[in-house]
């Protein structure tokens, strides 16, 4: 039964990845800025920028194996997993922590809905469903071509 569920999720995920929405960086409607460029998103997610519009920004991550996270790392951070891990090791030396992790897209969306200064990466559909503000959108093709 569990197996079946997992398989279903994986299939549906890959389906979403292939056909469904593009990846967006979203936040609460009260988020201090309305849009972000790629570099800023990178810097936020690498804890190089901590404040925006005078507010401390709280980036939210998805779990290690989440398909969106992989997509995000490839297309936004443009870093390999191992590289990212080395990076966080360096920040560990500098006294910085990697972003907070929530389990599911829905959890992230729900979280963003409540927390004004948090940002997360979601599928566009989910972001819209939860009526979140989209700060940056990654085109599937673009990100691929960029890489």
């Amino acid at each position: 039964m569990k197996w079946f569920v997992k398989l279903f999720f994986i299939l549906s995920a890959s389906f979403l990845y292939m056909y469904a929405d593009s990846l967006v960086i979203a936040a609460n409607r009260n988020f201090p800025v309305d849009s972000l460029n790629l570099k800023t998103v990178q810097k936020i997610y690498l804890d190089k920028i901590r404040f925006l519009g005078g507010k401390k920004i709280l980036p939210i991550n998805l779990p290690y194996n989440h398909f969106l996270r992989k997509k995000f790392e490839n297309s936004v951070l443009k870093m390999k997993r191992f590289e990212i891990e080395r990076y966080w090791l360096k920040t560990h030396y500098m006294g910085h922590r990697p972003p907070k992790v929530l389990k599911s897209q829905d959890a992230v969306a729900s979280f963003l809905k409540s927390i004004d200064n948090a940002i997360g990466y979601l599928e566009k559909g989910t972001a819209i469903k939860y009526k979140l503000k989209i700060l940056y959108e990654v085109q599937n093709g673009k990100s691929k071509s960029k890489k």
Partner: protein
Amino acid sequence: MRFCTKLVSNLLFLLLSLFLPLKSISDDFSEGYKIGDNFYTGGYLSTEYEKSDEKEAFLVDDLAFLLYGENDRWDFVSEFEAKNLYIKQNLPIKTEESNLNFSIERIYLTYYIDDYKTVTIGKFNSPVGFWNIIPINVLRDTTSSPYIVEKSFPKLTSGICYRYALNENFDFLYITLQNNEDIDSSYNNFKIKKHYGITLELEKTSGIFKISGGYFKQRDNKESIYTVFAFRKIEPNYTFTIESSLNKIDLYSTIFYDIYLQHVQNLNEHYYLIARFEKFRTYKDDIFTVDKKFEENILTLGLTYRPYPNVAIKGEYNRYSMQNNDKWLFSFSFMF
């Protein structure tokens, strides 16, 4: 001798106990341990093996513990480090020594003034170049460090550092001021009582540029000025770095210089090939030498294996043009 065996066995135990959590890395890697609401701890260890024609040495050269935490607008970082815990040398004469003196390597508070400005107070790595920012074995590219970080400017500053983002691209300007004795001068390369420095960090599409200039005064009132130019280009397959410096110490008429070029090729995510060439003119510390300045070319070739992000096993060969210092270096280091 008893102390050494004890130390080695303790270190082995430490290694084992620290490697166990590494298994979970593949799942969702996180460093350090949370020890309070907002506090984390961690540390690192480095061991080296050096072999040359004249010399053979094994050393546990670094053991450090980190304690850091963050609040809404505050960052706190501290590092307690013991260097050269254990040295076993086989020069013409065999020697073995050990000590366990922890010193404060870093301790500072950073305050986020606003989106663009931070101020750091305490003892911190001087924001000069690339190598000096991340100087520990497990994080750096080779076991040996280029001479530039030793001979050109103070590695550590005990004072204030003001960082200002110049633009939306977050190019930074650092202003470093020290007008007092070091907090703990044990591991600083210069025993300074004054240091005024400025650094410009520019991030361009071609790479990151860091330009620094400064003045420092040592305890014995030797005054020096320096300027450092650094460039780093990070690509998915390789990283290329240049760091160069000019510095003048008031005692010497000569202007000393140092430049290195380093190329790190990522063979895959675990293996890295490193080639570095360094050329410098510096002075000899020993007082018997009449002509104190001397020039040197060093060629370094190395291979680094990182089985996990926090573990590094490195091997390298250094070739010197002047000094009789050609050697093989191997090291094992990790962070937790």
